[in-house]
């Protein structure tokens, strides 16, 4: 399991609460209310409108608002308010037609393309791209000319041109979901393709489609008004575009005539856009950032805990060395994140230290706060994270009070960092050479040639036999094991005194893991570095560490020398963790034997029987 349980980009959507969460957004609620008002106006227009929208009263021509005509009269002598209300009908009707036809075309095609892939995908994508390349306006104008200005046909045609928007978004989503194991699981469970498409795939694309529909409706309304503005569409039903055209002609003399439909149109489209963007926020299409205030609240809560929790606020863990002798010393570190339900504290008072040349392991299960502790040392917490500590010393120097820039200056020079996932930690857009040379040149001030030479040397040192090829490669062209060596090379190239390795072998195969551990050990001894290694694997701890810190739920439960921790774990949790590593537990044969002894009757059951038979041979 990856170590970061925090608001990563793809938190699973809770469908049931989307509506409720939406209602917590004031802007979204206002937008939704406005849209509902427009919809209500459209639906109730025949009852709400004070006059027949097409009734001409010549005295009302260009009339100012007043006298029973709230918004005045247009240039043909019709009541603007009534026309506005009836125009809302046309506008929404058109938007619905457009969205529905776009949906009907784009979504099934997108889902099928994403799900089936291959030829289906290539064909559908080509058609979609082709549609986007068609000069839509020409076709719309031609269609308008040919269908006798039929409004529904025109709106369907518009929907066809907006279908690629739906197609792209559903295809991308379907493509991502297609790779999810639950789709394979459904197929294995005997679910037919149509049913998978209907249930799993449609459910997966549902939320982005809602967002896309809000946006498409806005675009459709705008385009519709544009077409009507160009004089296309039925003349006998009132529409906002027509009204704007009318107003446009009289803009300088009677600006109010243009103003009303513009306001109606602007509000409707803006409402849809706000609804769309609010929904997008909610399903994390647009990553929301914690505000400055929220961060300040976290900081305050971390430094001044509520009195009732004080017992839980004492620092955990202990220091082994004197402050001056430490390569790293952390004093009562707390890390918190803002969440809707208040501050979520993930590191709750951690104190530890490491002497120069020492290998310190921080071990714990996922969510124990071990990685967060390391990020706090590096001052590289994910956005929204706030760290507070009584003290953080690196190479005997107090750094917790330093500015962000001064903290950053430690990185690459005093502190090196080896991450967990080898491939996601290399920039896919640059060659390995560029990524190794850049820090050497711009952080350590080497010349270009020197930097390259140093990079090459380090690559050789980390055991890469063909350094020149590796230097010229892009990250996706090398294996995971090689990438991890490159990352280690990058971390030690600047000869830091403290190397922080965050689960450096978790993503690797065991044979590679052994190699990498060996490499780390060698480098640590060769350069005399302090190595702080974060891991969940007690085997790794046993292999490389001098001392261990065991963490659980953001606190340290035990600190000690490796031998002591493994022989006589003081905390039951530590003991549980050690025993859970399956090194010395009974194998299946022992288990089955034991089981057979306990319940001989079970021998008749097939499972044990098979085992027994195997043994018998």
């Amino acid at each position, binding site marked *: 399991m990856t170590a970061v349980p925090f608001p990563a980009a793809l938190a699973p959507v809770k469908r049931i609460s989307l509506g409720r969460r939406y209602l917590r957004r004031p802007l979204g609620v206002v937008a939704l209310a406005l849209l509902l008002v427009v919809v209500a106006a459209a639906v109730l227009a025949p009852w709400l409108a004070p006059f027949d929208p097409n009734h001409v009263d010549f005295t009302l021509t260009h009339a100012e608002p007043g006298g029973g005509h709230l918004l005045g009269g247009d240039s043909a002598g019709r009541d603007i308010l009534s026309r506005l209300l009836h125009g809302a009908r046309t506008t929404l009707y058109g938007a619905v037609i457009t969205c529905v036809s776009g949906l009907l075309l784009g979504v099934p095609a997108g889902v099928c393309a994403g799900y089936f892939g291959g030829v289906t995908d290539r064909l559908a994508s080509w058609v979609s791209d*082709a549609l986007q390349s068609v000069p839509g306006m020409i076709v719309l104008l031609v269609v308008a000319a040919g269908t006798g200005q039929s409004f529904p046909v025109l709106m369907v045609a518009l929907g066809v041109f907006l279908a690629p928007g739906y197609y792209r978004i559903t295809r991308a989503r379907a493509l991502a979901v297609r790779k999810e194991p639950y789709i394979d699981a459904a197929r294995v469970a005997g679910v037919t393709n149509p049913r998978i498409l209907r249930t799993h795939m449609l459910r997966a694309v549902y939320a982005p489609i809602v967002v896309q529909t809000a946006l498409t409706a806005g675009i459709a309304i705008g385009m519709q008004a544009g077409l009507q503005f*160009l004089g296309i569409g039925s003349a006998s039903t009132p529409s906002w575009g027509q009204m704007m055209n009318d107003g446009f002609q009289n803009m300088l003399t009677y600006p109010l005539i243009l103003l009303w439909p513009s306001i109606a149109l602007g509000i409707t489209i*803006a409402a849809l856009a706000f609804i769309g963007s609010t929904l997008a926020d909610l399903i994390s299409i647009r990553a929301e*950032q914690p505000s400055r205030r929220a961060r300040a609240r976290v900081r305050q809560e971390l430094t001044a805990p509520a009195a009732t929790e004080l017992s839980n606020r004492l620092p955990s863990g202990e220091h082994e060395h004197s402050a001056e002798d430490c390569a790293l010393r952390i004093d009562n570190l707390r890390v918190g994140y803002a969440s809707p339900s208040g501050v979520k504290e993930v590191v709750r008072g951690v104190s530890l230290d490491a002497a120069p040349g020492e290998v310190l392991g921080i071990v714990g299960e996922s969510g124990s706060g071990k990685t967060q502790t390391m990020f706090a040392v590096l001052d590289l917490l994910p956005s929204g994270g706030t760290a507070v500590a009584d003290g953080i010393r690196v190479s005997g120097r107090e750094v917790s009070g330093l500015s962000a820039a001064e903290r950053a200056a430690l*990185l690459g020079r005093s502190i090196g960092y080896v991450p967990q996932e080898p491939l996601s930690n290399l920039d896919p857009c640059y060659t390995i050479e560029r990524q190794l040379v850049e820090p050497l040149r711009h*952080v350590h001030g080497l010349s270009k040639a020197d930097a390259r030479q140093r990079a090459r040397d380090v690559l050789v040192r980390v055991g890469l036999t063909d350094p020149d090829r590796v230097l010229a490669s892009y990250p996706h062209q090398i294996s995971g094991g090689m990438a991890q060596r490159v990352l280690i090379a990058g971390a030690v190239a*600047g000869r830091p005194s403290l190397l922080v390795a965050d689960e450096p072998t978790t993503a690797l195969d065991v044979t590679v893991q052994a190699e990498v551990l060996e490499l780390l050990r060698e480098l640590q001894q060769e350069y005399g570095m302090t190595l702080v290694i974060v891991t969940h694997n007690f085997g790794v701890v046993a292999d490389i560490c001098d001392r261990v810190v065991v963490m659980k739920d953001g606190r340290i439960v035990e600190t000690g020398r490796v031998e002591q921790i493994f022989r006589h774990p003081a905390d039951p949790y530590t003991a549980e963790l050690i025993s859970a590593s399956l090194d010395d537990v009974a194998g299946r044969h022992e288990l089955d034997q034991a089981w057979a002894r306990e319940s001989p009757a079970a021998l008749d059951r097939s499972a044990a029987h098979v085992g027994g038979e195997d043994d018998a041979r």
Partner: protein
Amino acid sequence: MLSFIAKRLLSGVLLLVLVTTGTFFLAHLAIGDPTPGLLGNSATPAQQDALRAKIGFDRPLLVQFWDWISHAATGDFGSSWRNFQPVGDQLVLRVPVTLSVVVFATLLSAVIGVAVGILCGLRPGGVLDRVLKLASVVLFALPGFWVSLVLVTWFALDLRWFPAIGYVSPDQSVSGWLESITLPSVSLALGAIVMVAEQLRNGFLQVNNQDFVRTLRARGLSKRRVTAHVLRNASPAALTVLALMFVGLLGGAIVVEIVFNLPGIGSLTQSASQIGDIPVLLGLTAVTVVFVVLVNFLLDLVLGWVNPKVRER
């Protein structure tokens, strides 16, 4: 690389043929007999017959189609049914106008959009970011001609910085050309700017959350250098939007061309569709598709350059 180019070109040609073929039949289906629209209000049947003969409309549709497509293949788009000028000549006049405005608008949205996008991405939740979020909605909601009119009123009528209408070709006067396309480009670009900025900002934040950014920072790289990495990784989305924008603007320049009285392909599209001048419509379709294909091709090249992984697909 060569096979990539060949493949794209082939696909482009196929697209061109399909779209123009579609437009040909759609236009004929939709418009029917064009002579009344072309000749105006007082033509006799004999005159209509004469015109039909002159433009070859009296032949079977498939013959007309073969005639058109075989000539078009050699770059000859025939002549307008209205003024009998070669369609190619008209396009040569019209395309640079629209292209000037659209390219300039695209450049504007690229430069400003990227700048705003970066600034917002660097300080998410900041003032500028919130302004962008609001602006993206508001500009999205504003009808295009509204923006154009406001610009004309302020900058052409009140301040007199720019001409209210018209197009000056660059070989007459470069400064005049720039002046004449500034307002139309800006009105087109406003919407595009926020789209690009929004895309880049979101891409920026997404990339910013990726592991390698932390690693780069952990190597001690300055903020500026890390930003360069993030930007390059975030750019594909913005570039794609920019290309889509270009395509959209190319087709959607009609209103702006009308308000600023620009003799571009948008206003030609409108007038040709009104009178049923099918050869002109087909020429317009073909030229638009060619540009779209070129832009998409360029986009693929740039995306391949930005992200080497794409190259190998």
